[in-house]
């Protein structure tokens, strides 16, 4: 037995163990360093796992040496590796940032709690991605959800409590639906192992209980991924959470839910041809389009920048789900590429907004006017990320859009090309509202002097901004893994 074999377990165990230790220590610097070590190691492990998968194919790991289907199986394939790297990578960037950021947002005697909850949330999200067991997925989903309720409630604004409560209600409903769906599948198949479920579901294509399970899972996961019209919890949660939490959740939480949806649809229900037999594609297409247009339109009228970009997230989730609705390799590739690209872009935006919050004390459009002069780097970073949201060539968003349109063309749905592109023009409008306020209005009295956020916040944000541009030119990492994963998924669905 060497350590390399246990990487799948360590991936989750390290951050999971760091959380209670941080609580026991109760010293904020030590807690920070401990969690930092755990999360950076988790990132390193995810990269190692990805390399291992690339060398020798999917990894199956039996927890406690109990072979599946009796024990819990951890399973790493290309898709899992991608999500693991995304979650741990974003966490590794956000955590150093959070140290300076929470200084002004959270009472210092609660800092150790913040780090503990952050580690727990990361562990939960990583667990969702790595587990091959449907019930275990639910458990990790609850771990990540509960910790994120706490993280949101730590926000300085009192409305954070309401936002957290709202998310708790919606999240709990979603989780209940998921557990009901998993329960029904267990009843029908007699196993909780995902691979086992997939095999046994083949013979049960017309079964009503299976259809009910599909319905419960779809609604439950859609709640967690904030698919329009189940997105009401998201804008408030992102707007009132501490800045670091907004950035982390915006970049990862909904993306991991997308992962869960893909797993259930393609890996578990794949053999039952749900897309061919049920109007799933039309249903998802409709909701995706509604999200793209309505949420973008709502974003245009927001005054608070965090809310503006939160609604933009709902719209971008529309693009992600649109890719799934094509049920093709190119479509799922587009979904996965956009999942990563949007995570990086939105993560960068929320990190930058955190810096604005700190320097200017507010992020309404009237408060940030003239910030092109007082915070030139931050403003320019937000503009660059905004261009990626629009999908300007040379940014990550362009690559996503390219694949999405290619998928629509492959499908022969030419009108969709127009729809995708017109909705991206709505993004021009809300991004340009920021540009005009930041660059055409004079700074408020007292803001004339240059005051960027501290370097410990600027550097992590800058890293993600650079990644946003980098992934617009070098797509060997994003598209490379995404198309491998899409081929695995859609092949298993054929």
């Amino acid at each position, binding site marked *: 037995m060497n350590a390399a074999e246990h990487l799948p377990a360590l991936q989750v165990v390290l951050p999971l163990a760091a959380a209670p230790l941080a609580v026991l220590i109760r010293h904020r610097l030590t807690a920070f360093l401990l969690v930092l070590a755990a999360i950076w190691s988790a990132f390193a492990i995810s990269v190692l796992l990805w390399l291992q998968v690339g060398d020798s194919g999917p990894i199956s790991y039996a927890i406690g040496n109990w072979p599946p289907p009796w024990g819990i199986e951890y399973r790493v394939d290309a898709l899992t590796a991608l999500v693991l790297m995304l979650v741990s990578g974003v966490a590794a960037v956000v955590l150093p940032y959070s140290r300076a950021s929470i200084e002004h947002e959270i009472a210092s005697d609660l800092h150790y709690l913040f780090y503990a909850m952050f580690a727990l949330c990361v562990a939960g999200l990583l667990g969702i991605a790595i587990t091959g067991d449907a019930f275990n997925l639910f458990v990790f989903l609850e771990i990540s959800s509960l910790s994120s309720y706490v993280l949101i409630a730590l926000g300085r604004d009192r409305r954070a409590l309401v936002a957290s409560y709202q998310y708790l209600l919606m999240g709990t409903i979603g989780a209940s639906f998921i557990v009901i769906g998993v329960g029904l599948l267990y009843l029908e198949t007699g196993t909780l192992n995902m691979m086992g479920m997939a095999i046994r579901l083949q013979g049960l294509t017309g079964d009503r209980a299976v259809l009910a399970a599909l319905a419960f899972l779809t609604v439950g996961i859609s709640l967690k991924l904030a698919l329009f019209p189940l997105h009401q919890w998201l804008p408030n949660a992102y707007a009132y959470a501490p800045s670091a939490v907004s950035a982390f959740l915006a970049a990862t939480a909904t993306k991991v839910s997308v992962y869960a949806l893909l797993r259930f649809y393609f890996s578990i229900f794949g053999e039952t041809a749900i897309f061919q037999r049920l109007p799933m594609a039309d249903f998802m297409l409709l909701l995706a389009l509604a999200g793209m247009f309505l949420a973008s339109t709502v974003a245009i009228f927001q005054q608070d920048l965090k809310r503006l970009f939160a609604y933009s997230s709902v719209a971008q989730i529309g693009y992600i789900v649109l890719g799934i609705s094509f049920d093709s390799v190119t479509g799922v590739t587009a979904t996965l590429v956009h999942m990563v690209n949007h995570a990086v872009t939105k993560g960068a935006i929320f990190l930058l907004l955190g810096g604005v919050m700190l320097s200017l004390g507010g992020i309404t459009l009237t408060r940030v006017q003239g910030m092109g002069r007082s915070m030139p780097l931050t403003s320019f970073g937000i503009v660059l990320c905004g*261009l990626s949201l*629009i*999908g*300007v*060539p*040379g940014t990550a968003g362009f*690559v996503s*859009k*390219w694949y999405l*349109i*290619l998928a629509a*063309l*492959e499908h022969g749905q030419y009108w969709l*090309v*127009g729809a995708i*592109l*017109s909705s*991206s*023009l709505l993004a*021009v409008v809300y991004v*340009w509202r920021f540009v*005009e306020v930041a*660059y*055409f209005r004079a700074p408020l009295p007292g803001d004339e002097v240059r005051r960027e956020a501290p370097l410990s916040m600027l550097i992590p944000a800058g890293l993600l901004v650079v990644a946003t541009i980098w992934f*617009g*030119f*070098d*797509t060997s990492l994003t*598209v490379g893994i995404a198309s491998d994963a899409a081929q695995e998924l859609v092949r298993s669905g054929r």
Partner: protein
Amino acid sequence: MSATTLGSPLLWSLILPILGAICISLSGRRPNLREGITLTTAVVLFAIVARLLGPVLAGERPELVLLEPFPGLPVAFRVEPLGMLFALIASGLWIVNSIYSIGYMRGNDEKHQTRFYVCFALAIAAALGIAFAGNLLTLFLFYEVLTLITYPLVTHAGTDKARAGGRTYLAILMGTSVLFLLPAVIYVWHLTGTTDFRPGGILPAGIDSGSVTILLALFMFGIGKAALMPFHRWLPAAMVAPTPVSALLHAVAVVKAGVFSVVKIVVYVFGLDALTGATDWLVAIAGFTIVAASVVALSADNLKRRLAYSTVSQLSYVILAAAILAPLSVVGAALHIAAHAFGKITLFFAAGSIYTAAHKTEVSQLDGIGRRMPWTMAAFGIGALSMIGLPPAAGFVSKWYLVSGAMAQAHWFALAVVLLSTLLNAAYFLPIVYRAFLRPLSADAVAHPHGEAPLPIVLALCITAGGTLALFFFPEVPLALAQQMVMTP
């Protein structure tokens, strides 16, 4: 990247303006150094671009692959004759424009001059990226970059009017490129599996004529920078910019990037043969744009507005020439890119010179101004001759080829349009020259004496006016490039 690519003038022609922009932004506190860097960069850039001319004329096609964002679809550059011509014009006129900018920006005490010079240098980099683009993806990338990088230049003044103009500018250029150009590019990739520019076109042989027409429409309206009606409104809206920007936008980089892309796509994506019979509607719309824009220009009293609509009209000459599909007229299209660049930049320089020296913006205020500003108005006269298409100005040469091509195809509609627009051009340019030299000074002007504009301004507009004449007498280089473009199978 290997040592040979690092030494290639192609790579350096793209990097140099970016390096220049960085140095300019670092030297922002020392205006003399900053302007020195701008001028040096421009001169060196032109020298580098010119080094490519010899090999291209000899039949070489230098290539460079930078990155590969999509498998099989790289950001790549390839110098072909038309791109060479555009690059020479853009980098050459940047030198003159920089001289002019120094006089204008200082003479009018403009703010944010460092930002201005930085964006200017980056806009030139983007224009060269378009010129040398080896495939549609690269072209689209730099096309969008050019739109974005010129936005701060258009809105330079920072006033509400500038912001409104910037909105129109961005909305039309971004809207058309995202809604039409991007799907056209992706559709070509979807159909053919390549977006390279190749002599003779890349579309598959069996493609039906309906698809060709739709693709052509997407490309022609998607390239909003070519200002084909009804997507021309950004051009007059962008007139809020300082005059050197108008000169760059409306004579060199932006509009020429538009019509350059039109010709390049017609020749290298579709191929002249594949389009036979599919361009009648385009001839009609281009013809309509030529005449309608001239009529608007006729009624405009604001000098810059008149020049803007004249540009809209002249750009459609290029589109018309390309749409006629005769090799001679396509040569005319390429020549007109050069001819209009020199003529129109002279006219804008003159407008800015009048504004700087006399603070006048309307045509009706120009009575007798030629006596106080003889150099400016003489240059203006030469530019006007070129617009009308009379010898001894460059516009005559390009119009000659355009008309020859139309005759070869027996395209009487196109001939009628050219004839009518020549008359209209004369009707809105000659009265200005007449006013300036033959009408007496108004009482108001007598009360406010002024002389010529500052020396850099006068120098710059004399150089471009000279260029306009030189292109008439010595059209060999652009002609050779244009003919190579249509001759290589």
